[in-house]
């Protein structure tokens, strides 16, 4: 891995500090604005209900399922992805593309939810 930041950088440490400082600031700003954009959306899983059942999100956002039940659940898309949501655990899924995700619990098919993912 290349050295990115003085003073750990060897020979041209002083030159490097002056040269890379603006770049580092830009990168930090970029990181800050990216994290401000990406949201975490919580979905409670309690007494066999996803609440809210329908959420809207943007690509890059994270869905966080918080399972308060004594049972394991899943967020499963028919013929597609599956997220296991173990007993009393929180699991996260970062949304990769704009799409409508209709999911259900494979163990309790009455449990249904929808995530509408739009472009960032």
């Amino acid at each position, binding site marked *: 891995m290349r050295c990115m930041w003085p003073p750990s950088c060897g020979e041209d440490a002083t030159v490097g500090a002056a040269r890379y400082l603006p770049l580092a600031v830009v990168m930090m700003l970029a990181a800050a604005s990216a994290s401000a954009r990406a949201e975490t959306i919580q979905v409670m899983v309690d007494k066999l209900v996803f609440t809210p059942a329908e959420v809207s999100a943007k690509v890059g956002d994270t869905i966080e399922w918080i399972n308060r039940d*004594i*049972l394991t659940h899943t967020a499963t898309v028919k013929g597609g992805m599956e997220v296991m949501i173990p007993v009393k655990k929180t699991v996260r899924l970062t949304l990769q593309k704009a799409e409508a995700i209709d999911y259900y619990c494979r163990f309790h098919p009455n449990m249904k939810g929808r995530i509408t993912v739009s472009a960032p």
Partner: protein
Amino acid sequence: MSVRKYSLALVLALLGAATAAQAADKPTDPQIAHIAYTAGTIDVAAAKQAIAKSRNKVVVSFAKDMLRDHEAVNKQALALVGKLNVKPEDNATSRALSDAAGKTKASLAKLSGAAFDKAYVANEVAFHQQVNGALQTLLIPSASNPELKGLLETGLKIFQGHEQHAVHVAAELR
């Protein structure tokens, strides 16, 4: 077919009688715990029988769901009675449930293939209907400990889901 109808009618009659008899005097928390645990154990046994006998993927998957959930609820129930220092107490309703379940299990054992699948699922619908009815009208209102009441309410939600799931599977088998 006639075996199925007979066994179903028998279960319903016994459960109905048990519920009616119990309604006269409110069950105590130790009795409620015993009834709920017994009902769970019965469905676990039924699920194991179905997993062993059925070749139908939908039925086996449903039975596995029943096994997983009822074991989870019963584990929770055991932990709770331990914590509350309640000793589950045998009673007429528990005995009626066990007797009916024994007869159902025996009649199901004689069936195989699609006949077994249909009879098992039909019995699951009826059993969950009865247990949910008992939870709603008798067990939950009679429970005095709030934690026990809470677990029964959670159980009711779960078992209502099972009932709908069973109805759905029954429709698929038709």
